[in-house]
């Protein structure tokens, strides 16, 4: 990453997330599930909104009273639901904005990921529109302020035949029909939002839309407690004959309104449209970045097993019937536009095996810029000449902790596009051929993987929970996982040192006599 400010911010993010991990435990850290948390808050807001819709009175004269009835007469139940509706919405704005900033800091917005980023931008408008129209429905002084401000803001465009602000000019100007229209908008926009959220994750394989149970339970308790201790209440009823003076706005939704009040509609439109346009074109502002070639399927080696399609984080591989006379019924088909060149599919292919004969090593799906054969050759090269007890090969990724400084007489390093590209058979190979005494696998921490799912798939493969599995005969004591962000170089060094001590204390493995140490090219 070339931008030093962004690099510093990203390092700060990693440190903050590490500290948060230490405080609450990794499973309960919402930073790794911000998108999923937004989904969860959406469901809370939707469910509580359904309840509020029933007793709400869609009339100018009785809207405020019906909300007061829900809040005070149905207390605690109605008031609790109303508070959950409000605080759930606020929490959704918070997690959504954090999600946006975090994805930008982690550079997850360009290349094949443009679609998720681009389709995420309208979601911001929809969430804010839903929230603002919801506040109108209360029809208190805050609603009056928002209604008039929004109407004046929209009128400035001059595209409406009638002035919207004139609906709020005098006490008699506002009709019940306006509230009927308003509640229709307040329901329709979230429905469109749900549809747009589905589109947002359409090109993401196994999108994280359900936060871990710990987070769900903890957040739910937090929201209920907040609702009981500090319930949402209304301002005095709106009165179009009296101006609004001192207000208690919901700043999660209304931060732009003071800008409109002080700088006028042109500035408010300029900022909102400008930010929207900037966000929308950001994926293409990163054009200077070199984009690696997409993975390619080698038809002669593909047996259509589907592992690559299952593992690809972005659904870039699909399995289709094959018609080339092969005994295999299906074949993997790449969609290059969706490929991030992570190499996870290469490791998932059961033909990515250095024990299989062939030079070069061919596999069913491969990266043109970093072929599996090159991985095998580099493993041999980087382990060639390692001496001493506790010889270790460190396999890592280009986005986690930098590995170069770990190199030494007993340590060889190999950085891959993603740790998910580490085929278990490569580890087996390095140990079986006595190239090293142990293999340390590192990379981005789960949830921070630049390519998505690399650490998760790798951990499951090495634990024998996901194909291709690390062979049962491999001594698991000689394979170690240590996820390290780019800021955790020292921690990785310490772990490597511990691992080497542990390896040095282990007895030399017995090998069949015919197993010769492979000499690097």
């Amino acid at each position, binding site marked *: 990453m070339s931008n030093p400010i962004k690099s510093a911010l990203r390092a700060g993010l990693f440190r903050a997330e590490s500290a*948060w991990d*230490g*405080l*609450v*435990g990794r499973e*309960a850290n919402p930073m790794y599930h911000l998108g999923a948390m937004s989904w969860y808050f959406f469901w809370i807001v939707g469910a509580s909104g359904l309840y509020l819709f029933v007793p709400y009175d869609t009339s100018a004269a009785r809207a405020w009273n019906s909300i007061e009835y829900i809040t005070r007469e149905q207390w605690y139940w109605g008031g609790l639901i109303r508070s959950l509706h*409000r*605080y759930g919405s*606020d*929490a959704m704005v*918070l997690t959504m904005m954090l999600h946006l900033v975090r994805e930008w800091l982690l550079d997850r917005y360009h290349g094949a990921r443009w679609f998720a980023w681009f389709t995420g931008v309208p979601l911001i408008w929809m969430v804010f529109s839903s929230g603002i129209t919801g506040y109108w429905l209360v029809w208190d002084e805050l609603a009056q*302020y928002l209604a008039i401000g929004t109407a*004046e803001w929209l*009128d400035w465009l*001059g595209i409406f*035949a*009638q*002035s919207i*602000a*004139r609906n709020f*000019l*005098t006490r008699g100007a506002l009709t019940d029909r306006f509230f009927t229209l308003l509640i229709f908008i307040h329901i329709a926009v979230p429905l469109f939002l749900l549809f747009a959220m589905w589109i947002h994750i359409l090109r993401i394989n196994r999108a994280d839309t359900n936060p871990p149970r*710990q987070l769900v339970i*903890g*957040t739910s*308790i*937090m*929201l209920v*407690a*907040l609702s009981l*201790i*500090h319930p*949402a209440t209304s301002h005095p009823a709106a009165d*179009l*004959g*009296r*101006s*609004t*003076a*001192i*207000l*208690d*706005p*919901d*700043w*999660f939704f209304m931060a732009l309104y*003071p800008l409109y*009040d002080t700088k006028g509609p042109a500035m408010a439109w300029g900022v909102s449209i400008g930010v929207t346009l900037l966000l929308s074109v950001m994926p293409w502002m990163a054009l200077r970045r070199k984009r690696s070639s997409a993975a390619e399927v080698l038809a002669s080696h593909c047996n259509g097993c589907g592992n690559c399609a299952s593992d690809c984080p972005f659904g870039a591989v699909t399995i289709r019937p094959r018609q080339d006379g092969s005994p295999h019924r299906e074949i993997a088909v790449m969609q290059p536009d969706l490929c991030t060149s992570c190499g996870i599919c290469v490791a998932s292919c059961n033909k990515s095996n250095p024990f299989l004969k062939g030079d070069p090593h061919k596999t069913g799906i491969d990266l043109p810029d970093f072929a599996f054969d090159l991985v095998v050759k580099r493993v041999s090269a980087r382990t060639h000449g390692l001496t001493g007890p506790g010889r270790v090969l460190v396999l890592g990724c280009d986005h986690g902790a930098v590995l170069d400084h770990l190199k030494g007489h007993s340590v060889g390093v190999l950085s891959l596009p993603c740790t998910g590209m580490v085929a278990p058979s490569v580890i087996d190979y390095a140990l079986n051929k006595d190239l090293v005494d142990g293999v340390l696998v590192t990379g981005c921490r789960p949830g921070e993987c630049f390519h998505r799912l690399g650490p998760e798939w790798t951990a499951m493969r090495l634990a024998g929970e996901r194909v291709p599995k690390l062979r049962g005969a491999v001594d698991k004591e000689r394979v170690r996982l240590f996820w390290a962000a780019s800021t955790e170089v020292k921690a990785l060094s310490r772990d490597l040192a511990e691992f080497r001590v542990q390896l040095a204390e282990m007895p030399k493995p017995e090998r069949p006599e015919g197993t010769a140490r492979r000499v690097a090219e």
Partner: protein
Amino acid sequence: MIKPQHIAGQIVAYTAFALMIGYFASRPAYHHHAPENALLKLSLTHAGQRVGECKDRTPEELAKMPPNMRTKQSCGRERNAVTLEMDLDGKLVFQQTARPAGLSADGRSRFYDSREVPAGQHVMRVRMRDGNNANIFDQKAELTVTLEPRQVFVVDFDEEDGKFSFQ
């Protein structure tokens, strides 16, 4: 299994989360208008008079037209831009000329202004030019009004009565 220290940490973290949401959901307070002031709104939509005079059609011209279109006068669609001015206590506080809406400039001209004024007695003079004579104002009105704090006072134009309205 959650570690005990993580339970304590989660309590701290969720409390911080709740405080953040609870606080910014209604604080800090925002001062929109000064409570001691009134609000004066000038809002009207008004179609200016047609540009040029209407011309009477001759019987021959009417006979050539389809029966459903035989109106006695032929008038242009375009309307005049409307100029609106307002004085408050002898001082000009609003002056704007708005062109008619629509591609053919045959719609209404729109004005909107909202301003705080000190509560108390004020003299307002409003004038509007919507005709073909650029030297005169076709509508004028003057009013002395006493405004209460936070009162919203609206200056509009009543199209039915053809004169300014104050409410």
